[in-house]
C-alpha cells in the first residue's frame, strides 16, 4: 500500500461511512414504523425488544467471524441463499460484494441501536399528546410531524451522531471479515491508519493522518449537531436560550 493510489480509491474510505449514515437515516423512519407495530405491552413487546437487541451484544470480533461463515456460498445461509437465487456472490472474490457485505453487516449490527433509542423515545411521549391530537382530528402524518418528531429530536440526534462517529471508526468487523480485501476494497480509514502506524511504522504520517481523521469527524459532527439544534429551536414551543 502506498500513497500513489488513484484518488477515487481513497474516496471510497470517505464515502462508505457517509453512505452508511444515509442508509441509517433511511432506516430511521422505517424503524419508527417498526416501533409502531411493536405492541406497547405484554410479552410480545418484551420478546421483540430482546430479540432486536441481540445483535448489539455480540462482541465485534465475533460479528465478523459469524458473517465470515454466514456469507459463504458453500456453508453459510446468506451466501447459499443468494446462490440458490442465482446471484453470483463472493465476498472474498469481488470488491463490490465484499463492500456490500460490510455494509449489510453494519446495518444488521447497528440498526437495533437506533431502534431501541427510538422505541424508548416514543414510549416517553405522554398519552395526553395523542389524545389532544385525536380531539383535533390530526392525521397520522401530522401526529408524526408535530408530536413524535419534535419529541424524538434529542434521541434521534444521539442516534445519528453515534452512528456517524462509529461508522467512521469502523475497524474490527471488516478487519475480521475481509482483512481489508480483496485488494483495498474494504480497507477503511481506521484500518489504513493502523496499517500505516503499526504495520509500516510510518509514525509521523500516521500521526498526521489520525489528526486529520479526527478533525474530519469533529467538523462533520459539529455541523450536524448545530444543524439539528437549529431545527429544534425553530419549533415555536422551544424558546431559544
Amino acid at each position, binding site marked *: 500500500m502506498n500513497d500513489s493510489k488513484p484518488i477515487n480509491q481513497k474516496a471510497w474510505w470517505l464515502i462508505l461511512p457517509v453512505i452508511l449514515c444515509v442508509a441509517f437515516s433511511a432506516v430511521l423512519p422505517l424503524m419508527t*414504523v417498526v416501533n409502531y407495530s411493536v405492541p406497547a405491552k405484554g410479552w410480545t413487546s418484551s420478546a421483540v425488544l430482546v430479540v432486536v437487541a441481540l445483535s448489539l451484544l455480540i462482541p465485534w470480533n465475533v460479528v465478523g467471524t459469524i458473517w465470515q461463515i*454466514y456469507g459463504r456460498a458453500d456453508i453459510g445461509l446468506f451466501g447459499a441463499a443468494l446462490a440458490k437465487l442465482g446471484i453470483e456472490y463472493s465476498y472474498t472474490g469481488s470488491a463490490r460484494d465484499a463492500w456490500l457485505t460490510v455494509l449489510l453487516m453494519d446495518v444488521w449490527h447497528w440498526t437495533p441501536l437506533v431502534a431501541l433509542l427510538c422505541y424508548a423515545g416514543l414510549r416517553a411521549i405522554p398519552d395526553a399528546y395523542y389524545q389532544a391530537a385525536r380531539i383535533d382530528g390530526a392525521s397520522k402524518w401530522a401526529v408524526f410531524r408535530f408530536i413524535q418528531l419534535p419529541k424524538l429530536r434529542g434521541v434521534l440526534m444521539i442516534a445519528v451522531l453515534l452512528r456517524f462517529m462509529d461508522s467512521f471508526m469502523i475497524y474490527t468487523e471488516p478487519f475480521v471479515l475481509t482483512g481489508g480485501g480483496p485488494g483495498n476494497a474494504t480497507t477503511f480509514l481506521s484500518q489504513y491508519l493502523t496499517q500505516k502506524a503499526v504495520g509500516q511504522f510510518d509514525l509521523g504520517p500516521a500521526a498526521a493522518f*489520525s489528526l486529520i481523521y479526527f478533525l474530519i469527524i469533529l467538523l462533520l459532527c459539529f455541523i450536524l*449537531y448545530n444543524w439539528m439544534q437549529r431545527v429544534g429551536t425553530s419549533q415555536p414551543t422551544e424558546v431559544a436560550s
Partner: protein
Amino acid sequence: MNTGRFQKRTLFLIAYLLFAVLPIYWMVNMSFKTNDEIVSSFSFWPQHFTWANYKTIFTDPAWYSGYINSLIYVAINSVISIAVALPAAYAFSRYRFLGDKHVFFWLLTNRMTPPAVFLLPFFQLYTTLGLMDTHLAVALAHLVFNVPLAVWILEGFMSGVPREIDETAYIDGHTFPRFFLTIFLPLIKAGVGVAAFFCFMFSWVELLLARTLTSVNAKPIVATMTRTVSAAGMDWAVLAAAGVLTIVPGAIVIWFVRHYIARGFAMGRV
C-alpha cells in the same frame, strides 16, 4: 385499526426480525456442530448434534473466568457511568451557563476518538498507579466513552420532562435531593434503563482497551475469544459457542430494563 393495515405492519415486523435473527441463528447452529461439519457441509441444523463446545467453555477456567471478569468490570463501569452522568445531564438539561452547548458537544469528542488513541496514556498511567490487570482499570478506562454517551442519552430524556414539574415541586416545598430522587428520577426511568443498557453493552463488546489493560487476573471474554483465532487453524465451533454465551448476560440485562424502556411516562404524578 383495520385488519389489512395490521397485517402489513406485522409482516414488516416479522421480516425485520428474520433479518435480525438469522445470523444469530447461524451462530447457534454452528455452536452445536463439530468443526469438521461447519467447514465441510451446509445444513440448516446440526447433523451430529454435540454439546462438546459448551463443555469446553464451562470446564476450562481460561474460558469461564473470562465471563466473570467481564461481568465484574462491566458492572462497575455501568454503575459509575450512571452515577456520574445523572447530575451532569440534569445540569445540561435545566441550567444555562456560559458555553453550555459547547461543553455538551465537546463531551462527545471523547466518544469520537478511536479507543486506540487512549491506549498509550492509559497504559502508562495505570502502570504508574499499579492498576494494571485489575477490573477497576478496565472499568475506569471504559468511562471515557460511556460517560459522554450516558450524559447524552439522559439529557435527551430529561429535556422531555416539562420544566413545570420542577417548579411545581419547589412550590410544594420539596428540597432538591428529595425532588430529584422521588419525583424526577421515576419520570426518567426509561432513560436510566436505556443508558444503563448502552453502558453495559459498549463496555461488554469493547476489545482493544480491555485486552491491552489486562493480562491474567482480569482477562475479559472478548480477549479470550481472540485466542482461538490464533490457535491451530480456526476453532469455529468453540468460538460460536462462546459467542452465544456472550449474548446471554446482555439479554438478561435488557430483560430487566425492558419495562423501563417500554413503560410510558407517568404524567399527573405531581
